[in-house]
């Protein structure tokens, strides 16, 4: 059931989600997206270009964060605009062969703005990993019924 604009108010929370990430997840994202930059799967390459280690694709973080909005909206097609700035990399440690994640991304969303004329709500996402904001101005505009 999709939310109705009349039931919403700016500042209202839409929920939260935790995304656990492993090195295997980054390999899967590389294959699915076609982005094979080795900084996302090869430790030696990543440290060789002055990164602290293997980092998640910014687009993995962006793409997984928006699922909170998709599920809340009830229809992925309702997300008509989605933007972000990438501020901090998400460092993913190598936990291959264990049940532990290599990083944990926390996502929460609030209603930023309602546009009754357009029938849209802007959802502002807060996305953190290791206690730091990794996305800034992460905003999804949702068409409401």
């Amino acid at each position, binding site marked *: 059931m999709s939310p109705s604009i009349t039931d919403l108010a700016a500042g209202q929370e839409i929920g939260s989600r935790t995304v656990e990430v492993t090195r295997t997840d980054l390999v899967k*994202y590389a294959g699915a997206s076609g982005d094979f930059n080795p900084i996302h799967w090869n430790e030696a390459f990543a440290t060789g270009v002055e990164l602290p280690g293997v980092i998640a694709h910014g687009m993995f973080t962006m793409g997984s964060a*928006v699922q909170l909005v998709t*599920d809340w909206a009830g*229809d*992925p097609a309702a*997300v008509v605009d989605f*933007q972000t700035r*990438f501020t901090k990399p998400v460092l993913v440690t190598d936990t291959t062969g264990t049940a532990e994640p290599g990083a944990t991304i926390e996502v929460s969303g609030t209603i930023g703005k309602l546009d009754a004329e357009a029938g849209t709500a802007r959802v502002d996402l807060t996305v953190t990993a290791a206690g730091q904001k990794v996305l800034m101005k992460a905003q999804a505009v949702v068409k409401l019924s």
Partner: protein
Amino acid sequence: MTINPDLQGRSYPAAEVYDVGREKIREFARAVKATHPAHFDVDAATALGHRDLVAPPTFAIIIAQRADAQLIEDPDAGIDFSRVVHADQRFTHHRPIFAGDRLVAELHVDGVRAMGGGAMITTRSEIFALGDGDAREQVTTTTSSILVRGEGQ
């Protein structure tokens, strides 16, 4: 290596066609840990009024990054890919992307700004779905900024 300042205003016409397949939508959805049934189950998608599986909101990055590759791999651009950092990204969907769409992207270089020894380059991909004959429908506009780090950045 220095960025060619004449890149601003340059366009790359639509090149290869990207055929959106159901299994690619499912694969991409799993890769971003999406669970909405409209990405996986045709009946669930049609129950929402869609003609086929719906792509996740960031799926268009596949097509946009293929278009960007034309610029990044252009020797005349002077871009060292190993020094590229993704700075920002936006998707504006004029309509959703569905399985069965045949998509093309036109790439526009909207901005080139020197930053220290590097440069911030803003590109825009206009993604269209091909229809019958010469018909094409605007589907998604993506904009992205990349920072090409200079020496010591």
